[in-house]
């Protein structure tokens, strides 16, 4: 789960990492207590808000009111701004980049730090980004920190300040089961303080149960996706018009790939996973219907999820509510014969192979 910048900064403050003085502003009255000049920052769960005009500096109350009304409610790459953070301006001496994330390949947390923080960090060459891996069996050690900090060529006192922040950030990363903690820029102010001017904190969804203090925030999801998430169904809405239901992420992805091969476009990605509960299949199929795809493609390889279980769930929905789009089915594996028998009068189109089914789905979606 991605936290909004201001919530990430709340965690930073809890871990004694300095951030600029600031507050969430919902309306113009909330400006009181802040010294000018300050910055208004759109709170959205995606990057690139600066370039989109979601960050503005304000000099006085009039200016603030005007810019606040510009930012609040603006649309940044599909996200409506509903929260704005106001933060006092800091005099910056140096801008650094700092992150801790997961290196899947080494199976370890990876600390990355650079003396060239800021907007263009992704174009900073690798040799200017210093990396250090932390073995999870021993956790962060003084040498890890020394190693990266010494390469930044900072003043002694600055080194100490940055070292402390790394240590605290690692603690936060571990304690809150983070996938990512990123600070860009991490700055050293004119008066020598090390401060986080931004925050990106992603918490591992699987570990949220350990963090009851972190309120869930489903801002990135469409209403149907939220509904699916609450029902425990893997459901992602895409731009196309073919709804894909399959079991297992790999098979679902392979199905979308096959559609692309035949020049069709997936509109929903619905992974039944391993289930043996027809009721859950029913809920999934209902969700799919609500997404109103032009064609539904049901691609099953029965194993743990038996074909007849899925067939029962699908049949129940069609019997009860009918279906107003073509459904192509390709059913294989455990109990495929029973499944085919269950569905034989449901008016579905059957195909023998993935290729056939994909091709038919694409043709139907194109209105052929």
């Amino acid at each position, binding site marked *: 789960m*991605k936290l909004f910048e201001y919530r990430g900064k709340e965690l930073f403050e809890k871990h004694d990492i300095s951030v600029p003085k600031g507050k969430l502003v919902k309306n113009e009255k909330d400006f009181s207590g802040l010294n000018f000049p300050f910055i208004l920052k759109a709170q959205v769960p995606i*990057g690139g808000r600066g370039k989109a005009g979601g960050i503005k500096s304000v000099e006085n109350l009039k200016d603030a009111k005007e810019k606040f009304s510009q930012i609040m409610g603006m649309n940044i790459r599909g996200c409506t701004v509903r929260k704005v953070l106001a933060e006092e301006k800091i005099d910056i001496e140096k801008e650094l980049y700092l*992150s*801790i*994330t*997961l*290196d*899947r*390949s080494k*199976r*370890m*947390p*990876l600390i*990355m730090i650079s003396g060239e923080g800021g907007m263009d*960090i*992704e174009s900073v060459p*690798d040799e200017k*980004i210093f990396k250090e891996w932390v*073995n*999870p*069996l021993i956790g962060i050690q003084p040498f890890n920190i020394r190693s990266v900090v010494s390469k930044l060529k900072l003043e002694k006192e600055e080194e100490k300040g940055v070292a402390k922040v790394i240590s605290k950030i690692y603690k936060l990363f*571990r304690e809150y*089961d983070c*996938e*990512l903690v*990123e600070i*860009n820029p991490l700055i050293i102010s004119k008066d020598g303080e090390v401060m986080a001017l931004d925050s*990106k904190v*992603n918490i*591992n969804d*699987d*570990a949220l*149960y*350990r963090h009851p203090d972190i309120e869930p925030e489903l801002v990135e999801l469409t209403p149907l996706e939220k509904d699916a998430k609450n029902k425990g169904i893997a459901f992602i809405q*895409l731009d196309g018009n073919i709804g894909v239901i399959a*079991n*297992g*992420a*790999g*098979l679902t*992805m*392979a199905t*979308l*790939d*096959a*559609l692309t*091969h035949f020049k069709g476009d*997936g509109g929903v*990605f619905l992974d039944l996973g*391993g289930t043996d509960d027809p009721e859950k299949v029913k809920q999934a199929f209902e969700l799919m219907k609500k997404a109103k795809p032009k064609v539904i493609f049901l691609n099953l*390889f029965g*194993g*743990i*999820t038996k074909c007849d279980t899925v067939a029962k769930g699908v049949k129940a929905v069609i019997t009860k509510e009918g279906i107003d789009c073509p459904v192509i089915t390709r059913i*294989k*594996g*455990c109990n495929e014969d029973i499944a085919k028998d269950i569905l034989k009068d449901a008016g579905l189109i059957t195909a023998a*192979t*993935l*290729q056939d089914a994909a091709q038919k789905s694409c043709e139907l979606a194109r209105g052929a």
Partner: protein
Amino acid sequence: MAIFVDDKTKVVVQGATGHQGMFHIGEMLDFGTKVVAGVTPGKAGQEVHGVPIFNDVKDAVDETSANTTLVLVPARFAKDAVFEALDAGIKTVVVITENIPFHDAMEFVHYAKYNDAVLVGPNSPGIASPGKSKVGILPGGIFLKGNVGVASRSGTLTYEIVNSLSEKGMGQSTCVGLGGDPITGTSFIGALDAFEKDKDTKAVVLVGEIGGTAEEEAAEYITKNISKPVFAFIAGRTAPPGKRMGHAGAIIARGKGTAASKIKAFEKAGVKLAKFPTDIADLVEKYG
């Protein structure tokens, strides 16, 4: 021979008395797996399909000489279960449990290395060596004994591919489900290394997907270390990009991780790639 599990494999099932545990103990026994013990704290003395249940793994190992564990416990108890198995001397750990916090997985993956143990998973469907042993929840009916090694990051997709191999009469030495989580114990490289050494394996099939750089690393490893023919399918060529991990994700990946990058890397390593999952069988038949 075979890799990771074979006829010397003696399995203890952790989480044996739950719904899944009971069902899959039966399935594994049907497959011919030597399931020698189950573990559920507080249920020592019970039996599941005739398999004795113990309070802890140490007791189970002492009594039955189990050398492999199948972990089916709920996600929040998984780390403890894996640690327990490793401390009890288990040398092959198969973790089926999904939704394990990855910080937990990191810890037990490294603790397995400390113990010189093979750990497959988490979120793995298991391992099957047809005719010898199956440790996991893979559907038993699709397998055929033979000489193709399969290692896969996907579940169902693997079943589909194995099924099409079997239908064409090309059996498998071992099929390893590596697990779909960001952190897994054994990667393609671990499986490739084992298949290379296994004299029953003549060809290797890898089933990959987008995300991470395991395929790119496998490709490099194949170039340097693998003499046997390798075939691959990559799922997700047109899938929506996964969650973007800040700038950090981009800095680590530097363009890797996409299906295109993986396909390119495999092609460079001389790996034959299938367009559709079921094409793999044709490729193996032709070039294997």
